């Protein structure tokens, strides 16, 4: 466990020396800030008819993950492969799965840090409107964001084990996210068949946008997110292991 933590700590700290990480954090905070301002102004303008809602902050954050998380995870293994430091990790007395989990944890904690800073907006909103925002929705929405980030980071970290080029990692990761976000829901919406049922289960928006983001916390959704993270990291470990045979 302490080895995983050692890897995670180094990964986390590294983001604070990385311009890409700052750019991502700035992008998220800026865009969410703009959305917040427009939310608040439109909410006050149409007074009585429209009340600003935290969902209008939470959902855009999850959308920004599509671009932000590939930028955060693209370097994880690609850079190590490129600079040769992967040889250091793979010859240290640490198991491959410990490396993968440590890397994921470090990147995930960094994403949580960014997500955490966006709390200022709902908190501010809470003081601006009367009788305040729905605290339950805020909590479950942010829990949902954390799970979505966990899944996306796991996929991004795994994809970065495939490439020594960060650009290739970035583009592939974003491609996978786009498939998950827009393409899987299409057969899912058709409904009826077992195939559509399966797609509906795989569609993570049915576990986030339709539930956690609007204040429903269900065990089945949490199981879904945890199993997707586990599966992605398993693939990442296998990928790292097969690298030894190449």
């Amino acid at each position, binding site marked *: 466990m*302490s*080895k995983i933590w*050692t*890897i995670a700590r*180094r990964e986390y700290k*590294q983001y604070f*020396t*990385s311009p890409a990480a700052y750019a991502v954090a700035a992008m998220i905070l800026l865009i969410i800030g703009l959305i917040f301002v427009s939310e608040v102004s439109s909410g006050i303008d149409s007074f009585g008819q429209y009340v600003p809602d935290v969902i209008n902050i939470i959902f855009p954050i999850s959308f920004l993950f599509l671009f932000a998380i590939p930028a955060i995870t693209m370097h994880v293994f690609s850079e190590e492969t490129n*600079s*040769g*430091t*992967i*040889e*250091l*990790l*793979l*010859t*240290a*007395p*640490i*198991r491959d799965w410990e490396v993968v989990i440590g890397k994921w944890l470090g990147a995930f904690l960094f994403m949580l840090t960014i997500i955490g800073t966006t709390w200022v907006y709902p908190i501010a909103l809470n003081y601006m409107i009367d009788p305040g925002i729905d605290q339950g929705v805020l909590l479950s929405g942010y829990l949902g964001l954390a799970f979505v980030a966990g899944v996306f980071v796991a996929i991004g970290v795994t994809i970065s084990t495939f490439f020594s080029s960060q650009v290739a990692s970035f583009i592939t990761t974003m491609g996978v996210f786009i498939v998950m976000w827009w393409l899987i829901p299409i057969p899912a919406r058709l409904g009826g068949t077992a195939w559509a049922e399966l797609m509906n289960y795989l569609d993570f928006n049915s576990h986030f946008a339709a539930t956690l983001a609007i204040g429903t916390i269900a065990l089945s959704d949490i199981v879904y997110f945890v199993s997707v993270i586990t599966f992605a990291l398993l693939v990442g470990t296998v990928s790292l292991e097969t690298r*030894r*045979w*190449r």
Partner: protein
Amino acid sequence: MIQVKGLSKDYGSRVAIEDLNFNAKRGEILGFLGPNGAGKTTTMRILAGYMPPSEGKATVAGFDVVEESMEVRKRVGYLPENVPLYGDMTVYDYLKFMADLRQIEEREERIYEAIETVGLEERAFSYIGKLSKGLRQRAGLAQALLHEPDVLILDEPTIGLDPAQIIEFRKLIQNIGKERTVMLSTHILSEAQQVCDRVLIINNGQIVVEDSPENLQARLAGAQQVALRVDGDDDGLDKVLNKVKGVTRVQREKDGSLVIETSSGKDVRPEMARAIIKAKYDLLEMRPVGMSLEDIFLELTRENAGPPELMDDQEYEEAE
């Protein structure tokens, strides 16, 4: 400490090493020589636990590199050719990271000891990215020494260092090698001769020669080359040179000079000079050519990879 039996590795259709066999004892510095692509790095990676062999068995400190990889990794200090460093960390942070990964007790003590051994005291808190090539090499070595490994595997440790640094580095390795087993690869013959107790020459994935540097030098003295520059060079000159006793081959270089290969340890220069003058050619230049490692490989691999014949003592003395 290191035992290698029938070790082979192929990358798909390309064979990197084939049926390697060798041992190294505690306190021995083993030199691994070969041209680029000979299989040095592959062998060292297998021993360090980076990748498994395709066939054969290797043990380090009594542990199998595949079955007991974790035990092997705990006991090996490995410095890959492409020194693995994080440029965004200071030397101290980097070593602390490695010490934590290796779960070293008395962490601070070991870190400072390693920094002191490689002489990086003044730069311990500099960012690695800002260090010069030689200092980075030392930081990499400090990482390999951190956990006081039984076996130290260094892949081309002196590449990219300036001459003064190389001398210092060799001293350092010799000191370390007193208590530990060191295996280092290089393609500089003189380096292996100075530092190593035993030298393995590897070519095309196979061991060509295994011997002490002293014996190796003696073997190599058996084949010497002389470069000539002669005014009025023509075909007749070949005949003249070939008549000189001991000349085995005459070769023309692009720049107009001639390279003469001689077989025995006997110095053919006086006789050759006389022969050239006698045949009314003007001798402009004559100098012995030191054999490069590539020449040695050609020499060693020419007769079906068999080692060249050893000279007897008398010939050896003459050659000296």
